[in-house]
């Protein structure tokens, strides 16, 4: 039942929004059906709730954090559900006529229903975490509602402000709820409500209270978070009527009531809540007097009434709680009707500015009557519901015990002032709108709105009267049930009647009314109320802060990120120094071992490498020269590999060096020939410094590492290489067998590099930096000699490939030994010629290589062994005898193909770049000189 009740608005929202083609009438009916059906369900549950039963429903959701989909309807939830649904139904009816012809009704009703559902979910939640979920949902949906007229700047700003403030509160609430869960061990409301003592005794209590109250205060627009509420008035009036009477802002006080049993009873609670409530009460009421906008006045009045309710809960007596609950109901009724009335006025006159309104009782007699009734209820005039709860408040104020006489007097003064202010702004509302002169500068012809717009107002106004006159017959059971929901069995004795005798509260009340009347008159006399322009301080602050935040964020982010590569890299180095520097220092300080003596030839290599490295750095701006010098560095590196027993490395390094130089030269054709000196000298020295520090650090680490003893698995590799890997060149056996998977990945990288280059250059048109005049001259003698060389080089490639497993060589080296001579053909004969004669599909070559390598590994899988398990068969062939064949050879074939295909794809793509179609002017722009 509860699930159905909760699901109704969501389902209806979905229906409304999906069935967009429906007429407005149908849409409104669909929308209205949800609260009406909900009210039906509620009615069916009412007897059980009234009898003290608490209907529940639970679905597990995330047991790990104790979040269950628990619904629970006690008296409090019941009362709120009633309010949400009943006023919701009225608002839907009202909105059906309020919305203009061109407005997107499905969207409006959809949002409204979503909001209604969230609100219902919050009041029905039987799990605190679930409550927090719905709480935030109300923030989100109210954001959508407030911003419904999104073309209006105030609407967008108001929506964002509301979301920011209530969203922040929601996060705080979430924190508080989690803390409660940690104290109680469960989020289930039953458990939480039973654990009040534990919570109050917990060291986390102040944090819990603070966070939860933050949520409550923001949502209920308590001082100093109240400023979002007036700006939320940019919403269509039905939204305001709904959000600011019965629902959104009431969520805060609902939660206050909900958690009252566990949070109240401490001085902290008492002082904080009542102080904030009192402040809000006065500030709201005082400000309301000076509003010119009808809805603005109502908004501040709402703030004030919420302050009153908060104050009542803060006073922490059972009686005050009952009064608070009662006022929640009363406020909902009169405020909803007032908002609707304001909406009608706006709708009919085109303005809500009280300075232009007046004397509307002439034009809108029914509406005026209803609005006046509601306004008097707001002022707390006898015979109306507002009077009753105000009276209870005064009674409580005068009987307050906690805090002693000081507190009692303070609260009494607050009550008195609040009463006076309330009367004053109510008078202003009534007088400036319905009486006096006017209306001024209203262009429309004013007449009563459609009947169905007045009916909701009427119903609510009648309710105000009925509750005010015969409370015992109308509201008593509701209030009793709700009070039981909050207070359990501790519901105090109270009487709901208009007449309790001529007692202190009544005197205070009358005094307040008189004072209010005088205040309004006095203010009118003293100053021109209409000329008072009050700046919304809160909004101003919010704006300034938001802007400052955005600007600050932008500046900071811009400064940090800035899109500079050098900065990125600089930070990497700094991070390395920070994370590895101290340890390096420590390692070096702990001492390092001695160095072995080096043969003089080693020092020659050392000198070549060091000198060429320095020269590269010094000469780097002359690019071609730098490239040449780097060639010497590469040669020296490969000789270092020779010196220290790494023939395969030396070979690979040599070949890769050649291809790299080819690449760089190809690229240099499309880049400037010299680097401009772009950085400030200070920057250069800074870079020199960090480069040296990093270099010394890495060198030091390497030195320290080399002088430590090594316990490596390599001895096992050496031992098992021949018997199990069938190869004498252990490096090659590692590459194709022990760590064949690395090589598999490596050739994948190589192949992908080919693909990337291909992808980047195939359709690119790039102008060379400088085009040499004349046609490319033939080079007959070099090409002639290279024809002699080419087949021989191919033979060497085959040799390197076949020998690789036992001597330096292997698929990679052989692939490059194949690619480099072919590259030479490209250089000497031109790419077009070579490709027209040979025409390889290098992309397919890469694909084929990958497939071959993969299949050589897959073969073993078919036999049930892991991928890449090398096989070694020795079939005895006739005449030839035993014939050893290693599957690693097949794998190496894949390597060979990929390396050849990849290298050639890269080189040939770079060699065949087309110039732009337009006359080739080398790209020059001012930025080049940056």
């Amino acid at each position, binding site marked *: 039942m509860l699930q159905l009740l909760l699901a109704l608005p969501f389902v209806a929202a979905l229906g409304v929004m999906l069935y967009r083609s429906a007429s407005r009438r149908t849409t409104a009916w669909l929308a209205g059906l949800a609260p009406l059906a909900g009210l039906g369900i509620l009615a069916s549950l009412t007897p059980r709730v009234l009898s003290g039963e608490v209907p529940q429903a639970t679905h597990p959701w995330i047991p790990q954090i104790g979040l269950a989909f628990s619904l629970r309807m006690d008296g409090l939830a019941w009362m709120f559900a009633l309010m949400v649904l009943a006023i919701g139904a009225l608002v839907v009816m009202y909105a059906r006529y309020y919305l203009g012809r061109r407005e997107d009704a499905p969207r409006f009703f959809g949002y409204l229903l979503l909001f209604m559902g969230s609100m219902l979910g919050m009041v029905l939640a039987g799990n605190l975490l679930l409550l927090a979920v719905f709480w935030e949902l109300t923030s989100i949906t109210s954001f959508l509602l407030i911003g419904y007229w999104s073309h209006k700047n105030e609407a967008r700003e108001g929506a964002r402000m509301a979301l920011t403030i209530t969203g922040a509160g929601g996060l705080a609430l979430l924190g508080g709820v989690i803390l409660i869960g940690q104290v109680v061990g469960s989020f289930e409301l039953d458990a939480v409500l039973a654990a009040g003592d534990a919570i109050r005794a917990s060291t986390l209590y102040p944090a819990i209270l603070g966070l939860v109250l933050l949520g409550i205060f923001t949502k209920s627009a308590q001082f100093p978070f109240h400023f979002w509420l007036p700006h939320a008035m940019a919403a269509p009036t039905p939204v305001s009527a709904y959000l600011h009477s019965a629902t959104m802002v009431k969520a805060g006080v609902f939660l206050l009531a909900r958690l009252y049993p566990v949070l109240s009873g401490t001085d902290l609670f008492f002082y904080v809540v009542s102080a904030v409530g009192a402040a809000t009460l006065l500030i709201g009421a005082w400000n309301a007097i000076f509003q010119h906008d009808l809805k603005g006045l109502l908004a501040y009045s709402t703030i004030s009434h919420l302050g009153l309710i908060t104050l009542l809960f803060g006073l922490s007596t059972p009686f005050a709680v009952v009064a608070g609950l009662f006022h929640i109901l009363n406020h909902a009724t009169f405020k909803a009707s007032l908002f609707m009335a304001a909406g009608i006025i706006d709708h009919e006159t085109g303005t809500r500015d009280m300075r232009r309104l007046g004397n509307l009782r002439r034009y809108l007699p029914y509406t005026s009557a209803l609005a006046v009734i509601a306004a008097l209820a707001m002022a707390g005039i006898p015979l109306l519901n507002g009077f009753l709860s105000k009276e209870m408040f005064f009674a409580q104020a005068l009987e307050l015990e906690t805090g002693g006489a000081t507190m009692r007097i303070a609260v009494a003064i607050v009550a008195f002032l609040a009463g006076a202010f309330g009367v004053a702004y109510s008078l202003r509302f009534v007088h400036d709108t319905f009486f006096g002169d006017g209306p001024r500068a209203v262009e429309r012809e004013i007449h009563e709105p459609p009947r169905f717009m007045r009916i909701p107002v009427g119903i609510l106004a009648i309710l105000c009267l009925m509750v005010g006159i015969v409370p015992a017959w109308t509201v008593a059971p509701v209030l009793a049930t709700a009070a039981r929901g909050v207070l359990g069995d501790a519901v105090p004795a109270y009487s709901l009647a208009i007449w309790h005798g001529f007692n202190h509260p009544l005197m205070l009340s009358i005094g307040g009314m008189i004072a209010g009347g005088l205040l309004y008159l006095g203010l009118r006399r003293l100053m021109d109320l209409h000329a008072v322009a009050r700046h919304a301080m809160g909004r101003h602050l919010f704006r300034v802060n938001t802007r400052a935040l955005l600007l600050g964020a932008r500046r900071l982010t811009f400064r940090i990120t800035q899109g500079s590569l050098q900065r990125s890299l600089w930070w990497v180095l700094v991070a390395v120094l920070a994370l590895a520097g101290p340890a390096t220092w420590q390692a070096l300080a702990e001492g390092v071992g001695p160095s072995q003596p080096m043969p003089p030839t080693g020092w020659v290599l050392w000198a070549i490498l060091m000198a060429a490295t320095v020269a590269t750095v010094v000469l780097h701006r002359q690019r071609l020269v730098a490239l040449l010098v780097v060639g010497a560095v590469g040669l020296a590196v490969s000789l270092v590999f020779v010196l220290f027993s790494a023939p395969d490395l030396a070979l690979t390094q040599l070949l890769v060096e050649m291809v790299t130089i080819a690449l760089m030269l190809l690229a240099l054709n499309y880049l400037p020939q010299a680097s401009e000196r772009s950085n400030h000298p200070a920057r250069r020295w800074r870079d020199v410094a960090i480069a040296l520090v990093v270099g010394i650090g890495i060198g030091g680490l390497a030195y320290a590492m080399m002088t430590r003893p090594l316990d490596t698995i390599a001895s096992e590799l050496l031992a098992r290489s021949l018997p199990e890997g069938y190869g004498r060149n252990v490096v090659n056996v590692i590459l194709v067998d022990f760590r064949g998977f690395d090589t598999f990945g490596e050739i994948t990288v190589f192949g992908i590099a080919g693909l990337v280059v291909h992808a980047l250059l195939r359709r690119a048109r790039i102008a060379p930096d400088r085009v040499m005049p004349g046609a490319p001259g033939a080079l*007959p*003698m070099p090409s002639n000699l290279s024809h002699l060389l*080419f*087949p*021989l080089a191919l*033979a*060497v490639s085959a*040799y390197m490939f076949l020998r690789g497993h036992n001597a330096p060589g292997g698929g990679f080296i052989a692939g490059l030994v194949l690619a480099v001579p072919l590259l030479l053909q490209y250089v000497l004969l031109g790419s077009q010629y070579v490709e027209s*004669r*040979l025409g390889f599909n290098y992309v397919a070559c890469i694909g084929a290589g990958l497939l071959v390598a993969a299949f050589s590994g897959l073969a073993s899988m078919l036999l049930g062994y892991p991928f890449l398990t090398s096989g070694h068969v020795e079939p005895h062939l006739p005449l030839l005898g035993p014939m050893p064949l290693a599957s690693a050879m097949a794998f190496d074939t894949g390597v060979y193909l990929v390396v050849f295909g990849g290298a050639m794809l890269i080189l040939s793509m770079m060699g065949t770049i087309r110039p732009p179609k337009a006359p080739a002017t080398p790209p020059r722009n001012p930025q080049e000189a940056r």
Partner: protein
Amino acid sequence: MKRLMPSIPLSLAVLVLWLLLVADFSPGQVAIGAILGLLLPWLAGMLEPERANFGRTIAILQLTRRVLWDMLLSNIEVARRILGPERALTPGFVWVPLELTNIHGITALASIITLTPGTVSAELAADRRHLLVHCFNLKDPEAQVAEIKARYETLLKEIFP
């Protein structure tokens, strides 16, 4: 046949290269070498614009002997001059008119000129009728040209008719 084996000497060269590389003259290796010798020149031939035609092959040996000997002598000569005072050098360019028309012959001549220290073939004229040679120590351009033509070009004309 011509298409299958564009150049018999090249095929032989591949075979010999293979056998030297594997340092194994077993029949199996000879077979592999032979296959490669057939295959690779064919592959390479696809790129070749001009095919070689050999004339008197015996002249090759004659030429080789002569070149090796010249290489030795000129090496010593040039080494002496490098170590000596630089002032004594009179380097210079000279255009050598060519009678060879075959590109293979021209290439061979240019290579020989380069490989014998003291002379470097720097450029071939676009019409392939002249070869620009730089000489380390050019005393008499006429004599130098004559010597090159006499010592190498005549033999080369026989090899590459």
